[in-house]
């Protein structure tokens, strides 16, 4: 049986970041990917400035192929039922509109780790000093490999997480997000911005932006609802209220399951013993659903933690949980109402944009936000959020005891 230092499951941006740290430190690293690379990935592709900085710092300038058109995004525009738009530019300047199929593949290649694509994880056996990984290749062949550490960087529906915490999936609420692509007849929405709607009747997560000559209309809702109906409702709303005239959706629609809650209530899941979880499999997600910058940073920290753990002979989970705390603080701050009001945790200035409105408009917007938040009432996150926010003020951090 082949034995390596680290196996990373998934060929995502989190995996690329972790692999970069591990390969740089001289550790033999193998990436297992279920699909054939380069693989398709559903994503808005609008990276935050912080994530962009990470890509440049660690992988160099982006190749043209890794970008959609428009190749960049200036900021975010919030929309409300009161129809008062709030455009906000990113602090860090324009950011790339990533073509995830090629950007992820480019980053993976730049990490210089060995890649085994068309290989699915079947099972894990943590034997204390090593983890035996069983995987199946598309050819049907089953392989076994041993590694000192395994990193799960395989997204919200993580197979690694399922292997170590089989019950976890049932314990959190799940959402579905899907996007459809439309030929444009007339679209007054500024294509330099990512557009997001705080509108309870449209759904939990509603967005739109331009891509490669078409307009994306995306909807997110609690799992179990009907994607087509939700989507039709949003396109009708956009036409009626914003004058967005689109042709019927093209057939290439896409969607996936999402875990919105853990970042909000500080209930992350970082793995067990020699198996580390990172990226969105842990629950990392910035506000308005940007997960790529968290994935890059948490992936890098997972890689760093393994390097530190080997160098210092410390348990990897202890090191990882100490090192990840800054990323937890940064991400959960984005959902913390006290931090939003006083701490500027986002990469665009929401309080400033809000204060720039007239008093009357501000009240309308705040009322609309409150109505939107009530949509989430059923998940009972309010008390936990208040508790986390208080801890943040009193102790300057979020409690690690709440993490799995």
């Amino acid at each position, binding site marked *: 049986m082949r034995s390596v230092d680290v196996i990373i499951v998934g060929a995502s941006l989190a995996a690329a970041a972790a692999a970069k740290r591990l390969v740089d430190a001289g550790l033999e690293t193998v990436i297992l990917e279920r699909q054939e690379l380069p693989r398709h990935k559903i994503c808005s592709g609008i990276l935050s400035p912080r994530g962009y900085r990470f890509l440049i710092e660690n992988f160099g300038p982006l190749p043209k192929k890794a970008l959609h058109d428009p190749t960049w995004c200036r900021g975010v525009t919030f929309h409300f039922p009161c129809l008062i738009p709030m455009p906000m530019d990113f602090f860090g300047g324009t950011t790339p509109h990533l073509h995830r199929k090629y950007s992820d593949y480019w980053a993976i290649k730049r990490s210089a780790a060995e890649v085994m694509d068309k290989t699915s994880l079947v099972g894990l056996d943590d034997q204390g000093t090593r983890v035996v990984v069983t995987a199946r290749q598309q050819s049907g062949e089953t392989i076994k490999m041993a590694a000192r550490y395994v990193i799960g960087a395989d997204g919200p529906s993580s197979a690694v997480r399922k292997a170590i915490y089989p019950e976890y999936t049932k314990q959190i609420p799940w959402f579905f997000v899907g996007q459809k692509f439309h030929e444009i007849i007339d679209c007054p929405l500024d294509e330099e911005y990512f557009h997001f709607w705080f509108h309870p009747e449209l759904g939990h997560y509603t967005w739109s932006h331009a891509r490669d000559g078409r307009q994306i209309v995306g909807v997110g809702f609690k799992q179990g609802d009907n994607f087509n109906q939700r989507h039709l409702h949003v396109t009708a709303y956009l036409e009626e209220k914003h004058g967005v005239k689109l042709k019927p959706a093209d057939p290439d629609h896409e969607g996936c399951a999402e875990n919105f809650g853990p970042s909000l209530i500080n209930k992350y899941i970082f793995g067990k013993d020699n198996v580390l979880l990172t990226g969105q499999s842990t629950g990392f997600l910035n506000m308005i659903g940007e997960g790529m910058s968290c994935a890059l*940073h948490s992936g890098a920290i997972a890689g760093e933690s393994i390097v530190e753990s080997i160098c210092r002979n410390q348990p990897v989970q202890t090191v990882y949980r100490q090192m990840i705390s800054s990323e937890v603080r940064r991400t959960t701050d984005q959902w913390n109402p006290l931090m939003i009001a006083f701490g500027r945790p986002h990469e665009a200035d929401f309080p400033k944009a809000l204060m720039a409105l007239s008093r009357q408009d501000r009240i309308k917007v705040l009322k609309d936000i409150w109505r939107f938040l009530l949509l989430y009432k059923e998940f009972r996150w309010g008390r936990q959020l208040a508790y986390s926010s208080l801890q943040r003020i009193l102790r300057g951090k979020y409690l690690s005891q709440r993490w799995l």
Partner: protein
Amino acid sequence: MPPCPVAPDALQGIPRQQTNPARWQGENWNEFVSTLQADNIDVIEDRGTRGIYSTDAGGLAYGMPNGVIIARDAQQISTLLRNAQRYHIPVTVRGGGLTTEGESVAFGGVLLDMTGMSRVLHIDKDTLTVRTEAGIFWHSLAEELRRHNFDYLSAPLNLTSSVGGTLGVGGIDVNSAKLGCSADQALCLQVVTPTGDIIECSDEQNAELFQRVILGYGQFGIITEATLKIRPFTPMRMHYFYYRSLRSAINDLILLDQNGVPDYSGILTMMDKAVTLLIAFDSAEREKTFFEQWHKQLHGYGELGFGIRLASYYALHPWRLNELFFLLRRKHTLFPDLQPAQHMRNGEIIDRTVVFSRAVWKHWGHKNMVIPDLATSVDKFIDAVEKGNAVCKHYFPRYTLYCVGIKLRAEHKAHYELSSIPHDAKDFSYGCEFEPILEENNYSRDYLQSFKNAIYDIGVDMDTSYYRFGGMMKAYIRRALGDEVVEKHLALKRIADPAMILNRNVIF
């Protein structure tokens, strides 16, 4: 705004960037190694040896060289560089590896370990100079000089830095306000240029090369030998004064330095409300002059007076008592190490190199050496320190500031062109290091890097300078020095190093 602000050919400057570049992909490596081996140059390729060099003292950038070469002599390095030019192989040079932004980390290519060249070649008692190989650590040089009752003029406090590496970046000592930075002590150098020529240079001979290599971040050649000024050895008489405010301690430091009062001077804080001014003297006469003429002008307290003031402060602020416990613990552990009995005689420190170097490693050493700094003119110094202090407070519960003056030499202006000496500094520059006390905590690399960049940003925003431990950082250099200076040196670099192989990504 360019048509596509995120395309590779239109990359905009971003506020910060870590020097952690993508790995070199290994083209022509095997042919290159075969050629070197034919010339009897040993290229170490085993993973264990290469792993020793995977990071620097900063511990934030990691990279594995394809092979390691231990420096033996100038001829060997010349052959290495000629072939590296021919095969386009990156060469990263490492002395003590005390850079903090990955400058001495090889992200592929060759890692040249200069510590193989560490002999003292000649001590000239008449001209008070020493000729040494450049891979020697300062503590080894000090040891050799002491046998002849000599001392170097100034060296970095952390003495496991190499002479060659220090001359390339600066080197600040507690006597720099009197004698300048370590790079100012170099009289002439033997340099192997990036194309493999072995050249002797000084301000009189091949002056252009000398000026580029001194404080040149290893871009224009590898220093293989150096002739440095030396002086007769003297023990050191140390005194401490304590302050409640940074501002008044800095004012006193500047007052003393500008009047040439102490031989050694600096500020060390335990907290921003417990500030220590250290001053020391080479002779009893100068010490006496200080006490007769200058002592009363200082605003600092003695240990007892300061202790009483501190006690009354915490009596009125009992909720901050944990600060007092920290101060007492720190005093209890740190101060004995600054005056260890085995290195003292009649109240004088007789081995300052050992005392300071040990204290630095013991009390500020960590697996990550996080010591960003700011260098400013006298006028901007207090403002810069206060801004940096606020950044420290935001990031870490405990930290130390270390402030020191640097005397500038008008005749060395050409040496300083690419350096971190601020452009508006005259006669003196002042530097402050911001050193978090990390203890056993693990922080992510990005967190530590963010802190460092927040300090560097102060330097850029205040139109002053920052960072002496290895370079100016590639992503910052245009913001810090301006396009004109950078373009000039980049053009020179392209001529001197056509394949751009030597110390890539450090500043270019």
